[in-house]
């Protein structure tokens, strides 16, 4: 039995891998509904041949070897782990999606999971909120907030920022915003919006009678007023367009990272009615 195993292993190692003729290597962190939706969108938009590798199925995937032996023209990383693994090689351009806080290198670009700040600010404007409180972790959302501040400077919305370094600081920091803001902006920041502190946003909203604009409709059931959610299938399609450009010869460096182009606005009508807000749905 042992001998049979040894012979099979030797056969696999000695026989050269067959040359797969595909253009795109899709590295997917794990089997996840959101990832699947995005990949489906990608496949819908990009008709190139591709091979998909789900990393959770392997103990340790050697992407460098795969790219060296299979020579894909493009690597599409789906998820943070896939992006980190894809950036370990430098021979093949990388496109990413479904990454919360991407830190792309020179030959990597993609579509983030964060909507453009202008979309949120336009919602605040529509709600009539001028002072919008934001709690964030600079290490996670610092760059996003800088862009948001830049956009806010051109609008009537004034962002009142509060930094947190740990999740347990969030309730206390929120207390410091009492009477100082007209609305709360809940960012997809794992430090600022931890499971233990999430409730604090809505308690604050209830106590101060200010709306919470959040990034997922799941928070609407907890007391959020408006949610701007991403469309994962459309993100896939958006990245598919990028991939198509890269495959057609456009250098990755020339393609800047993009925010999701499509946002879905939902609101909790009960909260909107109680807070006497104007409806923003349908935008």
């Amino acid at each position, binding site marked *: 039995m042992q001998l049979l195993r040894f012979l099979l292993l030797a056969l696999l190692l000695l026989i050269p891998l067959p040359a797969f003729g595909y253009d795109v290597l899709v590295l997917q962190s794990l089997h*996840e*509904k*959101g*990832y699947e*939706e995005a990949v489906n969108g990608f496949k819908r938009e990009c008709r190139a041949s591709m091979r998909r590798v789900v990393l959770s199925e392997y103990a340790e995937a050697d992407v460098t070897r795969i790219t060296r032996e299979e020579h894909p023209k493009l690597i599409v990383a789906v998820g943070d782990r896939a992006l980190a693994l894809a950036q370990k090689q430098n021979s093949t351009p990388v496109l990413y999606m*479904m990454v*919360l806080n991407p830190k792309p290198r020179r030959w990597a670009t993609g579509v983030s*999971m964060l909507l453009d700040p202008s979309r949120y600010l336009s919602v605040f404007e529509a709600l009539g909120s001028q002072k919008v409180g934001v709690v964030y972790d600079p290490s996670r959302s610092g760059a996003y907030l800088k862009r948001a501040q830049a956009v806010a400077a051109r609008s009537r919305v004034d962002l009142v920022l509060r930094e947190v370094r740990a*999740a*347990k*600081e*969030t*309730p*206390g920091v929120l207390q410091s915003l009492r009477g100082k803001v007209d609305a709360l902006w809940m*960012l*997809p*920041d*794992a430090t600022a*919006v*931890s*499971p*233990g*502190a*999430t*409730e*604090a946003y809505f*308690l604050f909203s209830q106590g101060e009678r200010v709306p919470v604009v959040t*990034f*997922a409709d*799941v*928070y609407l*059931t*907890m007391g959020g007023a408006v949610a701007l959610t*991403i469309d*994962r299938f459309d993100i896939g399609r958006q990245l598919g367009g990028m991939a198509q450009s890269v495959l057609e010869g456009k250098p990755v460096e020339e393609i800047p990272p993009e925010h999701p182009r499509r946002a879905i606005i939902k609101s909790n009508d009960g909260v909107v009615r109680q807070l006497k807000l104007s409806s923003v749905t349908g935008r």
Partner: protein
Amino acid sequence: MKKRVKRKFRLSPFTKSFRVRLYLIFTGTIALLTAAFVTFYVLTEINAYRSTLEREGRLLATILSQNARLPLFAENREALSALAEGTSRQSSVVSVLIIDQQGRVAAEARKVEIPQGETVKMEVEITSPSSVLSPESVLLGHQETDKQRVIGRVHLLLDMSAVRERLVNLVAASLAIGTLFWVAVSLLSYQVLKRVTSSFNMLMGGIEEIGSGKLSARVDLEGDDELARAANAINAMAASLELRELENLALQEELLKAMKLEVQEEKKLVMARLIQTNKMTSLGLLLSSMAHEINNPNASIRFSGYMIGKVWSDAVPLLDRVREEEGDFYLGGVPFEKARQAMADNAGKIVENSERIARVVQGLRDYGVGGDAHLHQKLELNAAVSAALSVLACQIKKDVQLKTSLGAGIPVIPGSQSQIEQVLINLILNAMQALDDGEGEVHLTTRHDAHNGEVVVEVSDNGVGIKPETMEHLFEPFYSTKLDRGGSGLGLYISQYIVVEHGGRLQLTSAPGKGTMARVVLPTAHAASVRGMVSAQNGQHAADALHQVG
């Protein structure tokens, strides 16, 4: 000792009353039910109160855990202490303890005065909301899970001394209400029982009165219920008993009268029999006397007749010579020629009739005196028949045809001839008395049954016969269908006795209207000792088939 105890607990007569027993059962049952209800109520209330207190405590702990979730997450000890202080001010809370996930005390509050009594510890987990996910998970579209993350615990110590106070109050109130209820229901039930059992008591009173013998008493109950129906039934029964008693009294009176009459009749019969017996006794004495008085002159007459005959025989030759010499002459108005023979005949008749008188008298004497010395005598059956007929010669009426058929060769048997004669006289008299209007035939037959070793004499008549119901009593002493005609009721009884004493049997065969046959059968067992055969006597020959007695 046991007897003493039993006597001690024996129910008094008062408690044997149906009403009192029912009342005791009712009140006892109500008391038990009330006690059970009170116990059940108190236990239920106490458990409910305890559950309420525990639920309140758990609710307080849950509210505290909910309120403490964010301060505990933010490690805001001031806020946690304020929450703990606020909760500890609740009356039922003794102490509050909030600890974090690592078991460290985050806040603690305790009452200054710790109550002495029962306490309950309450522990509730502080959990993060299950529906809250991390931002990344939310963006990836993860579904909510039921898994809650425990971030700390709330410990409450609850004061349960209020339970004891409530228990005391409940028991007191329940006992008071239960006692009042019991008293009220007992009084009500007594009134109801009194009303219900009044009819029963009336019924019982009536039954006891009737049972004591006063059958004219009645139960005066009206209505159509069971008791009224029972009273009606008892009244009907008492009326029936009363009627039966009256009938019994009437029957008793009738019975007494009948018994008196019967005794009188019996007395008359007995007296008649006694008189008859006395007559018979007197007759026996009379016969003896008569025999003596007749025998003396009769002997003289016979002697005289003999002497007359003797003298006449001596006188005849002399008188013949006188007639030859002097011619015929008269004696007593009759020519000597006729008187010569008539005188001899008359003298012979005197002797003969005198001897006959002597035999008759001897027969009467033997009949009257009797005796058992004759058992060792020799009995000639045909002679006995002749003797009986000679005794009855004067009794036989001219309308009665007496026919005898005496058998030849009948052996002499041991026995009393006079007693057998008496038997035959009784049977012949009965036969003659049985003849319708005294007219008819009486047959006397004797024979020897050598095969069976018996001698038989049969007396048969063609009279009225004997009824079957009379046949059963024929051999009873003093039973007679002719008591009014001088019958003693002893004839057949004595006859059977005599025949049985001779080892024989007396048989009667009869049918109404067809006559009766009496058969006397005597054994010849001892005939061997009596040698010699006797021929027919007194002019009766064996060849005489019929011997008519005129």
